[in-house]
């Protein structure tokens, strides 16, 4: 504690005379005024019992003197302007951003980074002066914004209510929310006319900095202060990938792939355990270099369904990424309907054992397109995929479709005039439909350049234009091939292309059956990121499903229209079970895993990149003098009240 002199010497001399005067007055006060009374009989009986406690009475009388002296002493101390080293909040408006993403659950700070951040935010609120207003924003990949308030109790409650999440970090939304106050928008009618008065604010970011830079953001009136939370060099081993797929060498078997990253500065060795439905299946010891990654393949027995779990046998700062899940769902053969007037190449390609393993293919003639029974089935979603070979239904069915040499009805799809396609010049090798499909030497006679609707993806370009495209439709997808495989010439069917002679043709059809038929997603479900929404496809007759999260909470989902179910409450890491009701209990599972190297990297960032500014980390707030004289004045006031009370309540001689 330090003091500042606020008075001149002669003022001190005058003030120091006050206690002396009080003592003198006290002695003067003791000179009692004599008063003759008829009899002291009643008076002495009144104070009879007080004589017994006369020493205490004297003390009590002196208590008043002591209290008065204490009062003066406190006021004198207050005049000395006592203060202590504290931290200074800058700005009258504070916006406190608290990161509650997955990395903030790290325990390098006790009890966790988030708790430490909340503690520091509470300390900030405690230091607010009267009249300061603050806003609390908790952010992970989305921001939870509270309104500005001067009510510290409410601010404390809001801070206490912030709970950790398993989500990744994106500060952009939080910054935009904060900027809404400091940088109010401009009206559109009159340029450069601010809608509201801009209010400068100080932005306190309590985070470990584990989020991408925000390049396109202007801070303007916001003054950012980055208060890093966590230990500077915290190592962490994390599972950054875990996936299952069919073994290419043995298609009837599955294999699991796990990738472990080391975010520490020391090389590490870790035991990775693979479990199936909770039972240990395999163990492997992995050595991971500092800052590097290491992977391993587990060969799995033939599995119908189950939950695979991989666990790092290590106790490090972040437990969330030491465990990952993968789900193998019971495979279901896709129901594929082929409407063709006769196409031997197509029939043969769909009769391969590989296709038969994943799909149940039915070939029918085009006249069925007007059959009432077929129309009802198509509208009820009885098929997963319908292939239209050179024909077109009156209405699109409730199923994924593949049009070969024809266009879907409705006019959304257009095509140019028939021309000489000759060869394919570019292919999308990433899309599941065209993976491993090589059309380099394929020759094509005639075709039409496609004009797919907005939002579609062109998978294959020919000399004429797009030759293969895929477009979404109410949760379904339509793929269209711009050239027919065969054409009718003089009553005979002749090939239009040499594609069916190439291995890429059955591969393409296999891809189409797996992808559009849905058996790909049925076999191995991809992992979802926490907080993302998961699309659940079910036959159209199923109107509602229930989803049970890893904590056991059950949420029912209702289908709206023809769209698939969408589940968004993926906050918890683990395996979610989807139940479509009787007769099957659990019909589908999906896993939510962190798999975010940015969150798993617990190294504390030394600065943040916001817009064009670099915000350096400030280990602590700027030291400032905290004035304590108010407390002394308050204490003096309390002493004064106490003195007044004792004076009024006293009973003594």
């Amino acid at each position, binding site marked *: 504690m330090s003091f500042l002199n606020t008075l001149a010497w002669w003022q001190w001399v005058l003030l120091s005379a006050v206690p002396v005067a009080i003592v003198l007055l006290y002695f003067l006060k003791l000179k009692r005024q004599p008063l*003759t009374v008829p009899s002291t009989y009643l008076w002495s009986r009144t104070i009879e019992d007080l004589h017994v406690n006369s020493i205490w009475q004297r003390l009590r009388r002196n208590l008043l003197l002591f209290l008065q002296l204490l009062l003066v002493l406190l006021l004198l101390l207050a005049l000395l302007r006592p203060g202590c080293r504290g931290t200074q909040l800058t700005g009258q408006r504070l916006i406190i951003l608290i990161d509650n993403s997955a990395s903030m659950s790290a325990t390098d700070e006790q009890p966790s980074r988030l708790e430490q951040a909340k503690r520091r935010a509470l300390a900030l609120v405690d230091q607010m002066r009267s009249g300061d207003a603050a806003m609390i924003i908790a952010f992970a990949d989305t921001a939870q914004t509270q309104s500005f308030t001067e009510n510290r109790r409410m601010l404390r409650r809001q801070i206490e209510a912030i709970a950790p999440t398993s989500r990744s970090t994106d500060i952009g939304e939080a910054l935009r929310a904060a900027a809404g106050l400091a940088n109010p928008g401009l009206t559109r009618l009159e340029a450069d006319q601010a809608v509201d008065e801009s209010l400068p604010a100080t932005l306190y970011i309590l985070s470990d900095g584990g989020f991408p830079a925000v390049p396109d953001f202007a801070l303007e009136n916001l003054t950012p202060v980055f208060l890093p939370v966590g230990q500077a060099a915290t190592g962490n081993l994390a599972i950054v990938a875990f996936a299952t797929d069919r073994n290419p060498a043995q298609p009837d078997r599955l294999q699991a792939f796990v990738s472990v990253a080391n975010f520490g500065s020391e090389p590490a060795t870790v035991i990775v355990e693979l479990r199936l439905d909770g039972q240990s299946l395999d163990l492997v010891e992995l050595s991971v270099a500092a800052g590097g990654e290491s992977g391993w393949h587990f060969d799995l027995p033939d599995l119908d369904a189950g939950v695979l779990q991989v666990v790092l046998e290590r106790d490090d700062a972040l437990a969330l990424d030491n465990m990952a899940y993968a789900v193998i769902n019971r495979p279901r053969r896709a129901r594929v309907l082929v409407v063709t007037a006769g196409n031997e190449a197509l029939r043969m390609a769909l009769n391969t054992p590989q296709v038969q393993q994943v799909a149940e293919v039915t070939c029918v003639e085009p006249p069925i397109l007007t059959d009432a029974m077929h129309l009802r089935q198509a509208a009820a979603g009885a098929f997963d995929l319908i292939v239209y070979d050179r024909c077109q239904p009156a209405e699109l069915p409730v199923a994924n479709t593949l049009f070969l040499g024809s266009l879907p009805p409705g006019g959304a799809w257009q095509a140019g005039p028939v021309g000489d396609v000759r060869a394919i010049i570019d292919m999308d090798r990433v899309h599941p439909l065209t993976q491993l499909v090589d059309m380099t030497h394929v020759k094509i006679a005639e075709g039409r350049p496609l004009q797919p609707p907005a939002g579609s993806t062109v998978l294959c370009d020919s000399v004429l234009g797009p030759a293969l495209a895929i477009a979404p439709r109410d949760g379904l997808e339509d793929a269209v091939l711009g050239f027919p495989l065969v054409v009718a010439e003089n009553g005979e069917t002749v090939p239009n292309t040499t594609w069916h002679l190439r291995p890429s043709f059955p591969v393409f059809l296999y891809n189409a059956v797996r992808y559009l038929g849905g058996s790909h997603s049925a076999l191995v479900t991809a992992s979802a990121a926490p907080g993302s929404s998961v699309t659940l496809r079910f036959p159209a007759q199923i109107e509602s499903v229930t989803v049970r999260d890893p904590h056991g909470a059950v949420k029912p989902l209702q289908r709206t229209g023809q769209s698939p179910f969408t589940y968004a409450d993926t906050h918890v890491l683990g395996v979610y079970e989807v139940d479509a009701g009787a007769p099957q209990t659990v019909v589908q599972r999906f896993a939510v895993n962190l798999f975010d190297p940015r969150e798993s990297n617990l190294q504390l960032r030394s600065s943040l990149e916001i817009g064009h500014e670099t915000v350096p980390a400030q280990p602590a707030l700027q030291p400032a003098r905290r004035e304590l004289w108010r407390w002394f004045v308050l204490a003096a006031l309390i002493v004064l009240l106490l003195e007044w009370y004792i004076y009024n309540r006293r009973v003594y001689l």
Partner: protein
Amino acid sequence: MPDSRNQPELLSPELLARLERLELVTRKIFRGRLKGERRSRRQGQSVEFADFRNYVPGDDLRFMDWNLYARLDKLFLKLFREEEDLHFFVLLDASTSMDFGDPTKLHYAKQLAAALGFIGLVRADRVQLETLGGSRRARAPVLRGRRSLRQMLECLADMQPGANVPLAESLRHFALRNSGKGILVLLTDLLDKRGYEQALRVLLAQRMDVYVIHILSPEELEPDLKGDLRLVDCEDGEVTDITVSRPLLDRYQKTLAAFVAGARDFCTRRGMVYMLVSTAVPVEDVVTRYLRQRGLVR
């Protein structure tokens, strides 16, 4: 200390007129020394017929009703109401403590004594006024008859405060001198540090009809004091230091209430009539209303 010479006169003409109609009442049967104007509860010789009773040998033949004997051939004796006088004592406490208040308690006591004495004189009772512990000269002679009013008032006017004799001692002296029966009115503030109990007990033996009129001034009933005070007792000079505060005044009120309640209880248990009077209450109210209620006058 107020000057007693500036005190108002003892009896106003209006009060005298009202007192004319009153008379002293005793609850006990006393034998008066002289015939008075008082109708006693005793039956005896007077002109007012009361009752008949059978003759028994030895009865005074002068009271035989001969007319009845002639008619009924039986002897009956005529009984008459006795008319007698009453011995009425008024004892005034003339200690220094009585010389307080405005009017002083002593003056108030004198007014009360004068009023009651006047009633007695008018009804031809024997009235005797005395100050407690006073000298032989301070004692008024036994007064009787309306004409003694002037003498009684002079006697009262001569009574001066300052006779600080313990209550018990002076009452014992009184009891020794006056063995007769009658009505005794004690006018005092009872503020005797040795206590009043012993003093009042002396009067019990006398079979007197005792009225204790406890006179206190408003300053004693509701003290209006402030600050740090040194209270000096006017009688013995005893000093008591107090610092006046609300709680202290509350305690005083409790003590006073206990003191008054104790005195009332003491008197009531022993057949005495106790009455607390504040000097703020007009004397005529006390006589014509309160003492009437208590049965001393009617």
